[in-house]
């Protein structure tokens, strides 16, 4: 017998959410969604959650199981049992619960809309289709597989502390158009995406890659946008300056010059940014934690320089 510990919430009856436990024999081969349906149909018809296709296509049934977002229809119930034969179900994170496991997706959709998730073509529509090569298609193929389930949004570490962040799903969707050979607004797009709340606010934690039930893998897509932004000369922001300073440091010495990178990331004309570095700088100086003033290169740095040259970097 398995225990389903489900977070219940009905603001019309009780302002605070609470956990309720249901006992269920998991039928052989049942998915988590099958189990949820069984609970709803046989134990408590008031249990609310979203579902539709049962085939990991529609993206409706994403919930948090044992603390991590997943598609309920994509996992076997048995596989999710913890050591106490329990599965803990909660609504997706980073969005407001509406009832039980149903959350309000409004901010999620607002952010998808913000990245202009439609083609802005280069020219008039031709009589027939616009051709794309296999190579051109592969650039946007992974992002195209996103089913908007919100699992990445739920577990995003940046969104937990900053709801201004566009979030992984919207940024993956943005890459779908930044990388599209038929789109005319690449530069405008990467400029917009380099603003605060965009690509450079991603904290590299790869939670979104881990939670994504499809090959969309948002963090990988975010990195692709970063490369396009840097290649297009969109450098006037801390994220781009940081990437360039970092890469140039490795080019010069084979390793990172930690004294230069904070200053170069802020930008030498960014007075308030530079001032913000003083407290941490002083604290570290007083404890002798400042990196060596004379920066040393690695041994055989010439070979590293050769690789940069060979790759035109």
């Amino acid at each position, binding site marked *: 017998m398995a225990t389903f510990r489900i977070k219940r919430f009905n603001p019309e009856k009780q302002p605070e959410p609470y956990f309720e436990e249901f006992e269920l024999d998991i039928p052989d081969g049942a998915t988590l969604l099958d189990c949820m349906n069984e609970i709803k149909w046989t134990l408590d018809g008031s249990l609310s959650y979203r579902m539709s296709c049962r085939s990991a296509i529609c993206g409706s049934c994403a919930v948090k199981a044992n*603390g991590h977002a997943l598609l309920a229809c994509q996992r076997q119930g048995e596989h999710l049992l913890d050591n106490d034969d329990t599965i803990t179900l909660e609504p997706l994170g980073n969005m407001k619960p509406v009832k039980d496991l149903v959350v309000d997706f409004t901010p999620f959709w607002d952010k998808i809309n913000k990245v202009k998730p439609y083609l802005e073509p280069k020219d008039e529509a031709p009589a027939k289709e616009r051709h794309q090569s296999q190579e051109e298609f592969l650039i946007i193929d992974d992002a195209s597989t996103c089913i908007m389930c919100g699992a990445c949004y739920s577990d995003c570490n940046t969104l937990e*502390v900053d709801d201004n962040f566009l979030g992984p799903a919207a940024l993956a969707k943005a890459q779908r158009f930044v990388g599209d050979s038929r789109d005319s607004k690449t530069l405008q797009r990467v400029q917009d995406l380099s603003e605060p709340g965009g690509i450079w606010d991603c904290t590299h934690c790869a939670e979104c890659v881990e939670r994504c039930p499809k090959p969309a893998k948002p963090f990988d897509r975010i990195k692709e946008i970063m490369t396009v932004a840097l290649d297009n000369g969109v450098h006037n922001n801390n994220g781009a300056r*940081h990437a360039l300073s970092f890469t140039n440091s*490795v080019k010069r010495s084979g390793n990172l010059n930690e004294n230069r*990178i904070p200053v170069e990331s802020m930008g030498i004309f960014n007075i308030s940014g530079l001032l913000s570095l003083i407290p941490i700088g002083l604290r*570290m100086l007083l404890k002798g934690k400042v990196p060596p003033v004379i920066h040393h290169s690695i041994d055989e740095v010439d070979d590293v320089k050769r690789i*940069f040259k060979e790759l035109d970097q």
Partner: protein
Amino acid sequence: MKFALFTGCVAKGATRELMLSTTKAAEGLGFEFVEMKSASCCGAGVVSEKSPLLADALNARSFSIAEKQGLDIVTICSTCQGTLKKTEAHLNESKEYKEKVNDILEDGGHQYNGTTRIKHFANILATEEGMARLKSRIKRPLTGLKVAAFYGCYVLRPSENSDFENPDNPTGMEDIFAALGATPVYYPSRIKCCGFPIVMMNKDASLGMSGNALVDAIDNGADVVATGCPLCHLSLDSYQPEIESLQKKNQSIPILHLPQLVALALGYTPTQLGMDSHIVSTLKINQILSNSASSSH
């Protein structure tokens, strides 16, 4: 056991106490760590923002250096570990890509064959052999010390590149703490991001993340946080006085590098391990250990 030590940049720069304590821990454990002085920076997932191929070529060069020595690589930084493993995955994903990278390396006399394993320090300890070695060499068990792990996300995700058994619910670090005689503290934030990668871009969000993690560790009863990543250490220790959520509660918590914690149990003194160079005082740790030692006599 002999390894090629990929130091990473931060252990030679802002957190030199990590390098110091790694040397001591290796000495105490009887490991031979040969420093890879000609390896380049792993790129920290930042060089790959500029050029993924460049980042992979530089890391493949580092791998080939260890291959020539016939040694596996040990890292002491979760970010280095995750970034190197990502390159390794790219190289093994496609034969054409590997050949393309090897073409770039050729003129420097390097070639990547894929014969070297890349392991984080925690992962070489959290094996049967590592644990046995650890337990047999402990001189000062860390009895009474409640230690919260902070893994550093690169060493866990993507999970297919992680050496930890269950990256969503790992126990490797906690198993090490228990072997050292300490009491592991489990808390939800232990597998989250410290926020360091965006401290230059969005400092409020960055310190929000580190603050949430530290409050979580304290609320779950931790005396100290131990991390396998020097970037997490910078975020959790060096920036700690600026973390608002802790300031409001008037709380602080010392942060140790994993090798410092290990070497403490191996009998080295806090000063030998550079613990006096931390921003947040680590004196509390010695007090707890002395108290539990005197109460057991």
